[in-house]
């Protein structure tokens, strides 16, 4: 049963949940058998907690908003284009960027599991992996957008990209009005995670205190 010596002192309550016990048991077995290095696990967790997140994707979008040649390259081959930006972690081989326009709004989903462009957006939020989103996004995207408080014009085309293979999609939202002359860094603050999934829009200048 539980090895109480390993309890973290900050954990509230004295009982470990069944799941915690199960996970600890599994890690113990894999470590004892030499399959995993717990220090490597620490580093993986730390990476997702501190390094990988939507700020990476926001830099990509802000660059696309200010640099037409980069935007063109991004829409043609996102893997290669993002690879030219030193600050973003390697994205593997299969990233595709899709552009929102006044005529068309894009939205990303994975109906079969939870595929998501981790390298540019970090770990997916719980709602992205949930049954309500996975079931409805392909059938009633306007209803889903309503859950996020987003209302599009009735004539706007909606394109839903179901990530059914190893291709990963990210949305390049439209640059908000009133941002002429803004730097890439300022613009990146307007780019929300949800705007790169397609369930949100970028912030407007009045929504960020500068």
């Amino acid at each position: 049963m539980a090895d109480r010596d390993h309890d973290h002192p900050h954990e509230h309550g004295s009982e470990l949940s069944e799941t915690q016990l199960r996970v600890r048991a599994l890690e113990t077995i894999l470590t004892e058998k030499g399959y995993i290095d717990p220090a490597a696990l620490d580093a993986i967790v730390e990476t997702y907690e501190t390094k990988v997140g939507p700020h990476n994707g926001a830099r990509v979008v802000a660059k696309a908003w200010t640099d037409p040649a980069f935007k063109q390259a991004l829409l043609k081959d996102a893997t290669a284009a993002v690879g030219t930006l030193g600050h973003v972690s390697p994205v593997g081989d299969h990233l595709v960027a899709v552009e929102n326009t006044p005529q068309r709004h894009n939205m990303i989903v994975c109906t079969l599991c939870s595929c998501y462009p981790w390298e540019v957006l970090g770990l997916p939020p719980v709602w992205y992996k949930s049954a309500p989103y996975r079931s409805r996004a392909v059938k009633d995207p306007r209803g889903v957008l309503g859950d996020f408080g987003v209302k599009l014009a009735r004539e706007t085309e909606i394109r839903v990209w179901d990530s059914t293979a190893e291709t990963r999609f990210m949305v390049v939202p439209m640059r908000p009005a009133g941002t002429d002359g803004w730097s890439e860094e300022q613009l990146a603050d307007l780019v929300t995670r949800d705007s790169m999934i397609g369930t949100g829009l970028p912030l407007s200048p009045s929504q960020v205190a500068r």
Partner: protein
Amino acid sequence: MNGVHDMGGMDGFGKVEVEQTEPPFHEEWEGRVLAMVRAMGYAGAWHIDDSRYAQETLPPQTYLAVSYYQRWELAAEKNLVARGYVTEEELKAGHAIGPAKPLPRARLTRDVVDAGMTRNSFFRQQQGPARFKPGDRVRTVNINPLGHTRLPRYARDKVGRVELIHGCHAYPDSVASGRGDDPQWLYTVVFDGREIWGADADPTLTVSIDAFEPYLQPA
């Protein structure tokens, strides 16, 4: 397989609930599970589609009742036992009992974590020319395999148009059944919402899937 994981178009799950300022992990164990699965994948214990298939074959009641990372953990246990890396007895005991089985590749150590976290490439050597090109009209096949597939139910036997071609990729339906990569051309195929959901569908909606060549026929 026609499992509960294949959720596209199902009704009744309710509203999308958004948590503001969500942390990367809600519980410490979630990060450990993610990291264990990544590390074992790095060492070649399984392919990503083996992980998916192990989740898909959980009892549907379990799949819907447990959390995302609990699913990962249950799938990892299944795959470890099925592949002979861990025994049921060891899982019950909570510690190693028998000898380790050699891993196909070196284990993930701290000094190579950055490299180990870069996504694998799924490109494979093409076995022949692509059968379709962007603009082609295609009809998806009507298949209902018991094994793993990435053709969702809602997109079977539907007419669409090839939009993008992504090169030749490892074929999940083959990989997850132990038949190897069997490389196939991969396309983004787009469908009109009404082709999928009928006349009542949102007329502004188009839906695309990424479809491996065996999923497609000329239309």
